[in-house]
């Protein structure tokens, strides 16, 4: 298992945000955390990435205890994308993607030619070559999101955590983004843990779902097992129905 979460509890002051969460993700697969607003998805994924301390438990990524590493050591094994990445005004897209190599070259030294080669490779792979000199602030939502993904892949880790990577994108760009990530999982053995709101999309692209409610795991496993009408409806507090269309699970609100 590449990512192992054991009895993880996250607190902020006296309130418990995530409690006794355990699950694991095999290498080269995609696990999606689902759950209603306030279920603790963001707290969970930022804690997985080591950016938030744990009250209890531990997170192992490739057998390393994430919370026992320095920022730089962590950035060598895992990459993280927050829900609303900051767009640095005045920075070119290429310079932004170069930031992904920070852990590799260190901040006292500049990127080596090898680092820049990695960056150019990723730009090519994500079809961003033509935008390389554009100011980050002038990119559209879809381009910006791909730029963030490029920076993340440039980091060169085999494990990536993403918090709501398709927020604010239209349907086509959502699907493009998911397809890009899926390709990295299938072809480059990338291990992905992401949070998503769109249950239908989540079920179609991911290998494993973890359903979170009030900071606790309610269900986990393949989409077909997790997306059941009764448990979903209870967690989301509204009646949901699960249909199968072309062999894929589709979750819709009940018309009644």
């Amino acid at each position, binding site marked *: 298992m590449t990512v192992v979460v054991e009895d993880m509890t996250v607190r902020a002051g006296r309130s418990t945000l995530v409690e006794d969460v355990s699950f694991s993700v095999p290498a080269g697969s995609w696990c999606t955390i689902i759950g209603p607003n306030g279920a603790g998805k963001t707290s969970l994924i930022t804690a997985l*990435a080591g*950016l938030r301390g744990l009250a209890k438990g531990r997170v192992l990524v490739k057998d390393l205890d994430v919370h026992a590493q*320095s*920022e730089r050591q962590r*950035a*060598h094994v895992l990459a993280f994308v927050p829900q609303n*990445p*900051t767009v*640095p005004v005045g920075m070119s897209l290429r310079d932004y993607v170069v930031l992904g190599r920070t852990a590799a070259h260190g901040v*006292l030294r500049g990127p080596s030619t090898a680092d820049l080669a990695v960056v150019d490779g990723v730009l090519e792979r994500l079809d961003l070559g033509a935008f390389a000199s554009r100011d980050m602030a002038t990119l559209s939502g879809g381009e910006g999101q791909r730029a963030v993904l490029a920076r993340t892949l440039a980091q060169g880790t085999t494990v990536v955590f993403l918090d709501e990577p398709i927020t604010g994108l239209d349907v086509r760009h959502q699907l493009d983004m998911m397809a890009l990530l899926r390709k990295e999982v299938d072809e480059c053995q990338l291990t992905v843990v992401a949070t998503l709101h769109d249950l239908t999309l989540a079920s179609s692209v991911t290998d494993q779902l973890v359903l979170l409610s009030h900071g606790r795991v309610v269900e986990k496993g393949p989409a077909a097992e997790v997306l059941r009408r009764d448990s979903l409806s209870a967690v989301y507090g509204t009646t949901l129905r699960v249909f199968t269309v072309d062999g894929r699970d589709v979750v819709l609100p009940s018309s009644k």
Partner: protein
Amino acid sequence: MVSAATVVATLVAVVVGLVVGPTSIGAGAILADLLAHVGVGHARLNALDGTIVWQLRAPRMVLGLLAGAMLAVAGGSYQGIFRNPLADPYLLGVAAGAGLGATVAIVHDGGAVNVPTWTPWLAFAGALVAVALTWLIGGRGPRSTTSTLILAGVAMAALLTSAQTFLLQQASAQSLARVYIWLLGSLASANWSSVEVVLPYVLLCSLICVMAGRALDVMSVGEEEARALGLSVRQVRGVVVGAASLGTAAVVSVVGLIGFVGIIVPHIVRLLVGTSYRRILPLSVVFGAAFLVLCDTVARTVLAPSELPLGVVTAIIGAPVFVIILSLRRGVRS
């Protein structure tokens, strides 16, 4: 091109700082005298002119270069660390601490004509204690952020300024006037020993700030993402705040509170060369140095033999320059 222009500006400032003054001494004569000093030729200035150039103007010019460079690079570094365009080198209590230290020294000394010789040391100590307290309150511990640090700085400045106000309210009118003059900042008391005191701080601290440029560029994506990219944000913040504050404290203790350089110079440079701190910081060093020497030349010549307060000149010259560049850049963008 901008780099070349700032270097030229600095050379111009050096020449102007040596040549311009109430006593007319030509640049050629000064150069010949300098060459004679190192054994080339024999053309020397007469004793009086020599003293004016090498004991009055030269140390004043060098101190101006050092102070301008340090204040500008410290301001630029603070703006990067706090991701706040309004940050200046006095943000974390350096000015309030130095002001209180100097006030204590001057008021304690009573009615003497000159500011007591230990004023700089007390101002230096006051500045460092203020920043250290600010850091202890708002910069340590797992829950500290740049916001808690700024707020702690605001509180510390308010506290120290009120102590200073109390002292001033108790002081004689003469002490009051001298504290006021000190607070406005001036290079008038410059000599080679004050240069010697400030030089090591400015060299070390501005070098550290410039070297942090790349880390500050990473921080432009915010603290959380910078950490995710592998940057030890806490460490960078400690080192940069420490270096910028130490250098500023050393400068302020000798020249007083020269305003505006630390905020305006990095912004002018940013408008000219873009948002990367790898370019902003080294150019701020050079441009800040030139800017302050030129301002000081204006300060000491316009109303000669009396002097304008340096902080007034930096604002009178700096604000219009900034507005012009800002409107030109806007024109370019739209």
